[in-house]
C-alpha cells in the first residue's frame, strides 16, 4: 500500500540471488546474466546485460512471436493494405484489432482495411498438399472484392515447415493483378521474440515499397517518424504538434500510415526514430540508400517532447522554424506544468516499475519523473543490448544463430535518388554543437544507480519484485495485468494503454499524469479486506448492548 512505511530494501544483488535461487541451475545461470544493477559496470559504462536471447521454455514469458511483431506491430497500423494471414485461423484472429492502432482516413471514401481480418484458414489438406493454391485463390478473391493498392501476405508457423513459397505466389499475383503484392516470411518460430518480426516486416517494406513513388510532398521541413505505432492516438498528437510547428510528416512507420507514405519516405530530409528497437536499421538503410540522416527522438514526456521538437529544428537550422518551435513549446507547456503541479502532491515520492516493449520501458520513465515518481526497476520484453546500454555496444554484440536467421539487407546508395541532405562537415558541425546525430544512449544511462534492470521478465520474477519492492504502480502488458492487480498493485498497460491515451506529446503527458494519479490513489485498493478480516478477534462487544 502506498501509505504504509517501507522498510529498508535489500541490495540489488540480494534481490537477484533471491530471484534466481528458485530456478534449476541452468536457468539460474542464464537469468543471472539478464538481471543487472545500474552502476554495476565499469565507471561511466552501463553494465553488460544479456538480451535478445532465447526464451526459456516453461518460464512464463511476456514475449510474443515473430508473426505478432510483423503483422501486428509493424503492418497493423497501416490502413490501406489488405493483409492476408496465410495459415490456420488463429494467428489472423488474434491479431485482429487487438493492438488498438488508431487510424484516420481523410474521408469515408478512403480505404481502411484495419477493421477487417483476412486469412486463408488453412485446413489439414492444405498442410498435407501445400497451401500455395489456396493462397493464390485468396489473393485473387481479395483483389476481386476490394481492388486495393497493395496486398501483403504473412506466413505463420506451418507455412515455413511445409515449404509454401509465399514470395513466388506474391510475385506471380503482382504481375497478374498489376498491384503491389508482397509477402513476409514471419513464421512465429523465427528469432527469439517479436523483434525478429519487426525486422522482417521493415525489410520487406523497405525492399518492396519505399522509394517507389517520387512525388515530392509540399513543405519546407520534411521528416519521417519511424517506430511510432499510434497506440491510443499517440500519432495524432505528434502530428498535431508537428503541424503546428510547420514540420511536414512525409511518412510514419507506421502509426496512422498509408502505403503511399512508405512509398515516398525517401523524399524526407530527416528521419526521426521513436522506438529505436523496432526500426533503427530502417533509419540506417534510409541514410545509406537515400542520404537522409536520422536522430533519436522521444515524444513521451513533456520535456522529452520539447527536446525532440528542438532537435528537429536544430537540424534544419532555420531561424523561423527554431522560433516557431519555441513559440509552440511556450504555448503548450503551461497547461502541462499546471497539471503536473496539481498531481504532484499525490504522486511525488511514489514508485514505478516498467517491463514492456523495446523502448516504452525507457520512454515512460520520463513521464514518471515529471510526476516526481521514481523508477525502481525496468526492463524490456524484446530489446537488444543496445537498447539498454546504448548504440556504442553494437560492434561488440555477438550475432547468434537466431539473429543470423533474420535477413540483413545489403544497401547501396540509390543511383538516382541518393542525395546527402547534409554534408559530412555539416553533420560534424552539428555534432560538435551537441546534436546527437544517429545516437541512442539506451535505457540504463538514464536510470539511478542500483536500479535493477531485467530483460525478458517473467511472471514469477514480477511477483518477487512486487513482494520485495512494493511499487505503487507496475507497467507491462495485458497478460501481466491481473496477476499484478490481484496483489493489490495498480497495473498500467503500456502496450494498449488500457483503452486510454494518447500519452505522447503535451496533451498526452496531461492524460498520463491524470491516469497515474487516478491509479496510484485509487480507493479500490483499500477495499480488499472486509472489516471482519481486518479485525478478526472477537471482543467483549460481540453481543448487542
Amino acid at each position, binding site marked *: 500500500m502506498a501509505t504504509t512505511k517501507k522498510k529498508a530494501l535489500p541490495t540489488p544483488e540480494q534481490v537477484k540471488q533471491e530471484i534466481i535461487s528458485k530456478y534449476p541451475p*541452468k536457468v539460474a545461470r542464464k537469468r543471472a546474466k539478464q538481471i543487472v544493477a545500474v552502476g554495476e559496470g565499469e565507471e561511466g559504462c552501463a553494465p553488460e546485460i544479456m538480451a535478445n536471447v532465447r526464451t526459456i521454455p516453461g518460464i512464463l514469458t511476456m514475449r510474443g512471436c515473430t508473426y505478432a511483431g510483423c503483422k501486428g506491430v509493424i503492418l497493423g497500423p497501416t490502413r490501406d493494405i489488405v493483409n492476408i494471414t496465410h495459415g490456420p*485461423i488463429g494467428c489472423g484472429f488474434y491479431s485482429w484489432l487487438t493492438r488498438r492502432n488508431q487510424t484516420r482516413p481523410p474521408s469515408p471514401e478512403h480505404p481502411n482495411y484495419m477493421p477487417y481480418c*483476412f486469412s*486463408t484458414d488453412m485446413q489439414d489438406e492444405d498442410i498435407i498438399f501445400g497451401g500455395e493454391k489456396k493462397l493464390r485463390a485468396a489473393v485473387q478473391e481479395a483483389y476481386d472484392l476490394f481492388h486495393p493498392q497493395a496486398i501483403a501476405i504473412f506466413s505463420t508457423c506451418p507455412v515455413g515447415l511445409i515449404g509454401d513459397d509465399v514470395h513466388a505466389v506474391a510475385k506471380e499475383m503482382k504481375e497478374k493483378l498489376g498491384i503491389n503484392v508482397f509477402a513476409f516470411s514471419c513464421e512465429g518460430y523465427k528469432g527469439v521474440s517479436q523483434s525478429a518480426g519487426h525486422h522482417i516486416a521493415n525489410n520487406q517494406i523497405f525492399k518492396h515499397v519505399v522509394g517507389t513513388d517520387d512525388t515530392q510532398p509540399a513543405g519546407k521541413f520534411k521528416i519521417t517518424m519511424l517506430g511510432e505505432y499510434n497506440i491510443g492516438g499517440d500519432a495524432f498528437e505528434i502530428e498535431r504538434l508537428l503541424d503546428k510547428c510547420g514540420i511536414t510528416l512525409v511518412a510514419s512507420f507506421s502509426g496512422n500510415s498509408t502505403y503511399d507514405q512508405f512509398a515516398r519516405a525517401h523524399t524526407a530530409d530527416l528521419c526521426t526514430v521513436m522506438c529505436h528497437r523496432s526500426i533503427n536499421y530502417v533509419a540506417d538503410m534510409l541514410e545509406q540508400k537515400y542520404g537522409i540522416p536520422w536522430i533519436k527522438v522521444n515524444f513521451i514526456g513533456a520535456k522529452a517532447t520539447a527536446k525532440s521538437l528542438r532537435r528537429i529544428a536544430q537540424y534544419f537550422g532555420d531561424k523561423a522554424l527554431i522560433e516557431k518551435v519555441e513559440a509552440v513549446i511556450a504555448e503548450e507547456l503551461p497547461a502541462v506544468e499546471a497539471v503536473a503541479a496539481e498531481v504532484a502532491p499525490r504522486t511525488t515520492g511514489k514508485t514505478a516499475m516498467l517491463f514492456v516493449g523495446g523502448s516504452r520501458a525507457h520512454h515512460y520513465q520520463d513521464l514518471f519523473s515529471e510526476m516526481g515518481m521514481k523508477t525502481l526497476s525496468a526492463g524490456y520484453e524484446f530489446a537488444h543490448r543496445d537498447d539498454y546500454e546504448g548504440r556504442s555496444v553494437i560492434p561488440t554484440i555477438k550475432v547468434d544463430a537466431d539473429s543470423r536467421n533474420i535477413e540483413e539487407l545489403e544497401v547501396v546508395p540509390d543511383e538516382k535518388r541518393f542525395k546527402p541532405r547534409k554534408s559530412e562537415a555539416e553533420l560534424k558541425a552539428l555534432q560538435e554543437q551537441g546534436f546527437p546525430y544517429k545516437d541512442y544512449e539506451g535505457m540504463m544511462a538514464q536510470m539511478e544507480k542500483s536500479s535493477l534492470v531485467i530483460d525478458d521478465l517473467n511472471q514469477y520474477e514480477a511477483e518477487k519484485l512486487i513482494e520485495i519492492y512494493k511499487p505503487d504502480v507496475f507497467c507491462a502488458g495485458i497478460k501481466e495485468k491481473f496477476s499484478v492487480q490481484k*496483489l493489490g498493485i495498480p497495473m498500467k498497460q503500456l502496450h494498449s494503454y488500457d483503452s486510454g491515451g494518447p500519452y505522447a506529446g503535451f496533451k498526452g503527458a496531461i492524460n498520463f499524469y491524470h491516469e497515474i494519479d487516478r491509479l496510484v490513489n485509487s480507493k479500490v485498493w483499500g477495499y480488499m479486506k472486509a472489516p471482519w478480516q481486518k479485525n478478526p478477534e472477537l471482543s467483549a462487544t460481540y453481543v448487542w448492548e
Partner: protein
Amino acid sequence: MLLRHTPPEIADRKALTANPAKTCQPIGAMYAAFGIKGCLPHSHGSQGCCAYHRSALTRHYKEPVSATTSSFTEGSSVFGGQSNLLSALENIFTVYEPDVVAVHTTCLSETIGDDIPQIADKAKKEGKVPEGKHVIHANTPSYVGSHVTGFSNMVRGMVKYFSEGTGRRNGKINIIPGWVEPADMEELKRLAGMMDVKTILFPDTSGVMNGPLTGEYAMFPEGGATVEDIRDAGNSMGTLALGEWASADAARLLDTKCKVPCKVLDLPIGLAATDRFIDTLRLVAGTTVPDTIAFERGQLVDLISDYHQWTYGKKVALVGDPDQLISLCEFLVTLDMKPAHVITGTPGKRFEERIREIVPGDVNVKAGQQADMFLLHQWMLNEPVDLIIGNTYCKYMARDLDIPLVRHGFPILDRPGHQYFPTAGYKGAMRILESILYAILDRKDRDDPEETFELVI
C-alpha cells in the same frame, strides 16, 4: 463506416476467410485446462501461440491467465520440440509447482509430428515430473476444427488420463458443461444442488476465471475440478454431456473406457433446453424437482409473457459456437423471435440441419469454412435484422448497420458480466431476455418520436 468495403453482392469465396467466426483449437484446450484444480496449461509450439491465447482469455475474463510455452525456435522446428518440452516440464515443476501440466499441441508441433506422450514419458523417466504430479495432453492441430474442437479434445484428454472405473458406483452424475462461462458452471452446480443430486462437474472454471480481488495472488486458485473427482467420474451413474460439439466426445469416451452411460443434451440455455436438462437430471438421478426450481422457471415464463409484445416477430442475426447457437435459436423461437441469419466458423454437418429443425421458415445458416462475419454482414445488408447476438467483434457491424447488439459467446472484450452472471438455467435465460429487452427498448426509446416516447413499457 468501419466496414466500408463489405459489398452487399455476395460473391462465392473458396479460399479467403474474412472476419472469422472461430479461432483455433489450442485456445479451447487452454481454457478447458483451467477447469482442473492446480493445473498449468502448456502450449507446445512457438511462444506466440501461448501469448495470443493468454491475451485473448485475459481480455475476455479480466483475470490472470497463466500458461507456459515450449518457445520453439527455428531449430526445434527442424529437429522437433522434444528438448524444449523436456526442459519446459523441468522448469515448470521446479518454479510453479502445479499438480497437473496440461499440454496441448499447435499447428507447428503437429506439422512436425511431436509425440507428446512419448516426451512426457521420457520426462517422467528422467525425473523431471515429481512423484504424484501429472502430465496430460491433447492433440489440438489448429488446422482442424476450431477453438471448440480444442476445448472438446482437452476435456476428452481429462477422461483419457484420469477417469478410472473401480467397479464401485459412487452415486454421482457427471456433468460436462461444455464451453460456457465460469458463472454458468456455478449455476449448473447450484441447480443440481437444489435437486440434491451429487455431481462431478468438469472442467470447472468457476472460482478460477472469476476470482476475487483480495490482495493475494494464487497462481492456482481454489476452484477447478480435482484430479480425484475426474478420476472418480469413471464410477458415476451416468454423464450428462452438454453440447454435442464441446462435450460429447469426452462423455462417449467415459462410456467406452469406464462403462459410464451418457446422454448428450443441448446446452441448458433458454426455457426448453433448461427444461430438458432439469428433467433429464431428475430422471437419471431418480429424484424430484423441488418447487424452488419450478418457481425460478415460473418467473422466467412470467417475464416472457410480460414483455412478449416487444420480442414478437423480431428478426435476429446470430454468430457464435454451435452448441450455444442451437440453444439460443431455440430460445429465440420460444420468445417468438425470428432467427434470420446464423453463422458459425466451427464445422459440423449436423449444425445446419439442427438450426433448420429449430427455426420455422426461412433461415440463412452456414457453418465451417468461409462461414464468417463478412458473410453475415452481407446477409444483413440484404436482409436487415432487428438485433445481433454475438461476440464483441459484432460491434463493428452493429455500429455500421445501426442494429442493437447483445453480447454473447467468446470473446467478449468490452463489457463485464459474462464471468459473473450465468446465461444457463432459468435465471440465465432471464438474464438473456433482460439483455435482449434492454437492447430493443433502448433502441425504441432512442428512435421514438417525441409524442410516442413512452414512460411505461
